């Protein structure tokens, strides 16, 4: 039971780390697809199939495509050399120190906490019917609010990204 988890974690963490270290933005986005599919595999491992499918649909299907489109739309036109965005050494070292410190403190807290032993019942079974009953019953108000947030955010995104003809620079 532990071995698949370690494999999934290795793939996810390696994909994320390589994505954050690469200079080419397209390669970074493709490595992040690997990391997100690793997270979906973790959800499958934990028995949350619906969350895994939602993760695959939203992240692998939608967000990766939107990120690739944004990378291609905002590419520098002065040559491929400008695309290799440099990151300065001092800031990189500071960022790695800070994030390592944060992760270390959190990991120390996790290791120092007496967590309850997991129940021996095995992987919990959660049917889509149960999930739908939960969503439409006790969480119906939250579901409506999330739908409203999505609508407002997508309309706002269109408004922000849309161009006005009179403001466009001559080519």
């Amino acid at each position, binding site marked *: 039971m532990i071995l698949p988890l370690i494999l999934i974690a290795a793939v996810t963490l390696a994909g994320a780390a390589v994505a954050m270290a690469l200079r080419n933005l397209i390669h970074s*986005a493709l490595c992040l697809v690997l990391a997100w599919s690793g997270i979906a595999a973790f959800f499958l491992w934990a028995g949350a199939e619906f969350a895994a499918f*939602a993760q695959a649909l939203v992240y692998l299907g939608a967000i990766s495509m939107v*990120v690739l489109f944004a990378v291609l739309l905002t590419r520098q036109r002065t040559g491929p050399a400008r695309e290799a965005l440099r990151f300065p050494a001092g800031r990189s070292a500071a960022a*790695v120190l800070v994030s390592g410190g944060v992760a270390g403190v959190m990991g120390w807290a996790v290791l120092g906490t007496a967590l309850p032993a997991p129940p021996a019942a095995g992987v919990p079974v959660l049917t889509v019917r*149960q999930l739908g009953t939960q969503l439409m019953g006790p969480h119906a108000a939250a579901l409506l609010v999330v739908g409203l947030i999505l609508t407002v955010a997508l309309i*706002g995104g269109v408004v922000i990204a849309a161009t006005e003809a009179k403001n466009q620079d001559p080519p």
Partner: protein
Amino acid sequence: MNPLQLCLLISCALFGIGLAGALCRSSAILVLLGIELMLNAANLNLIAFWRFGPAPACATGVVFVLFAIAVAAAEAAVGLALIIALHRHQRSIRLEEAVRLKG
């Protein structure tokens, strides 16, 4: 080792990687992707606590993860629209060059 602890440690590592990426990269797109990785680490925690928690029958963890994924999708849409607008205004998405509001 307790598998719940292992899941939480994996989540810590993923959060650290996302934080490092968000802090050290110059490209606005990669900063946004680092923030997405941190959100994913939080989702990992929620699913782990649901899986190894005392009452997995009430699906609170999975429901919370679904809501978090929906909000992350909205955040990514708005963030990428902002990046495209930034690129239209200053012909670059480097965060060092976005200093127009600097006092």
